[in-house]
């Protein structure tokens, strides 16, 4: 029996395509909206300049950063859990982070610039550790436990956030609904800066672990035999993922499925090697989220859709097909 060779795209070509796509989506994001600009219609008046530099560009930058962060954390979580269904949203980490953010907003409103990302990180960390503990079994990570833990945490977090929205005042209520469905409209300098710093730190730290993550795909015991400190690595990567998700959620609320869809697509294009998977997922996540945000702004313009709705519309069918593919491998 002849087995077909694996067909892949060269990572460098994929990167080139993604960078071009990013340029195109950025130009579209800046020029399209309720107010349209043509690139050939220079120079622009003060009002147009203000729309571009104070509204669209900051929002675009936040979209690129959050997309990259979520896709990066998704790729690392899938490697760590050794499962393509692990995603910050599905495993409940995003909800945990949102819960932290909402609690800090209601309880510590005065400090929200720093306390919100920090509490989101704490919420994300606690949920990741909890899900991790629940999903570990002697046979490896149990998919069913992973998903069930995610459902339970999402239900609990959703309920508490729902309760908070009843007791909150008007301003807090608006912020809370933002966290539940995600929005990039609240882009500020500080949230963008925090996302940027987190992305740089996480990008470099995760990249250093790419060989170890590759070895882990063989199995935990095999990775240990290859000289990798598996326990230490897991703990570090879990904390870093929680930081990434916490920062992203604090800036833009729960935006699901980016961390699921992007690494999977990149893996199909260029293979599962984390050396290429991690940087390409960052690029691809940035492109995807900037396009999703463009869509969210234009679909019912001048009103906007919550971006979490858009990514869910895109991602949920994708998730469904992934489950069908995986069905044969589920263990009960």
């Amino acid at each position, binding site marked *: 029996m002849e087995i077909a060779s694996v067909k892949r795209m060269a990572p460098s070509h994929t990167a080139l395509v993604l960078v071009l796509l990013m340029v195109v989506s950025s130009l579209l994001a800046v020029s399209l909206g309720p107010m349209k600009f043509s690139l050939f219609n220079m120079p622009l008046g003060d009002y147009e300049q203000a729309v571009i530099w104070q509204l669209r560009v900051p929002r675009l930058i936040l979209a690129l950063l959050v997309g990259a962060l979520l896709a990066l954390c998704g790729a690392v979580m899938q490697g760590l859990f050794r499962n393509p269904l692990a995603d910050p949203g599905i495993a409940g980490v995003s909800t945990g982070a949102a819960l932290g953010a909402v609690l800090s907003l209601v309880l510590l409103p005065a400090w929200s610039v720093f306390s919100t990302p920090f509490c989101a990180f704490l919420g994300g960390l606690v949920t990741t550790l909890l899900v991790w503990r629940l999903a570990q079994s002697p046979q490896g990570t149990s998919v069913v436990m992973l998903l069930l833990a995610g459902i339970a945490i999402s239900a609990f977090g959703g309920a508490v956030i729902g309760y908070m929205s009843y007791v909150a005042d008007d301003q807090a209520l608006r912020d809370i609904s933002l966290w539940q469905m995600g929005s990039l409209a609240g882009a500020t300098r500080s949230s963008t800066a925090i996302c940027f710093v987190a992305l740089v730190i996480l990008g470099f730290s995760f990249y250093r672990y790419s060989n170890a993550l590759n070895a882990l795909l063989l199995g935990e015991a095999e990775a240990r035999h*290859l000289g990798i400190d598996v326990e230490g690595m897991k703990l570090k990567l879990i904390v870093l993922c929680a930081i990434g998700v916490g920062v992203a959620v604090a800036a833009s609320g729960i935006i699901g499925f980016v961390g699921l869809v992007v690494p999977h697509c990149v893996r199909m294009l260029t293979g599962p090697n984390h050396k290429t998977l991690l940087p390409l997922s960052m690029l691809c996540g940035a492109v995807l989220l900037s396009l999703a945000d463009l869509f969210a702004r234009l679909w019912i313009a001048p009103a906007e859709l919550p971006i979490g709705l858009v990514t869910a519309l895109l991602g949920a069918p994708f998730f469904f097909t992934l489950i069908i593919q995986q069905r044969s491998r589920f263990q009960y």
Partner: protein
Amino acid sequence: MLLENIKFSRNRSLLINIDRLDVLPDRVTALIGPNGAGKSTLLKILCRELREDSGSIVFHDRNIKDWSRFELARHVAILPQSSNLVFPFTAYEVVTLGATPLRLTQNAMRQMVEQAMKNTGCLDLKDTSFMALSGGQQQRVQLARVLVQLSQADKPPLLLLDEPTSAQDLAQQHKLLEQTTVFAKEKGYYVVVVLHDLNHVLNYADDVVILKNGSVVETGSPDLLKSQRILENVWGYTPRLSHSSNSTTVIY
């Protein structure tokens, strides 16, 4: 390599209790015994997946406890019984994972990986998805991976094989076992292999270690297996004997 007073228990039952066991380089040591004798547990202790409760394992004049993770990774490798890969690496990529504890240039790595795949007869599978391969093919790819892992050892390394023939067809079983004798004889590896087929033991092993209930009951040459008493004591199996004009052969 010398094991002394090794004890290992789980849930209050003593699984391994070995007073003394000497494993020699340049030789293929077959680890045999009935199911539940502790063969796999002993392999796991040797590759440090499990830690003994007491006793010492001295490898190259140093207690194996004092070896660093990287030294161990370059000197002790195990071929697992089955593989459970989650994402679609190619066979070639799986073999390159063997180089994780090594410092190699891209070029040196490519040569080493291809050589190892050639030696284990899986170079033609190079660009196929590992997950699409049969169990036997996967095992040959994994063996190549393990050989890459041991390729930069400063001292003769320890190669552990857990039932390497279980998924192979007849010709591949012999090819794989011949390969292991080559590593023992030509490269001076310590080779410890768990086998069930006593014919293979007679054909390829230099030493046998017979385990029962976690203890070593016999060590010596494979000729031990021709003793009806041992087969009955250890396995509870009474062998048939095939008589021809001038010799008697045991049928396992």
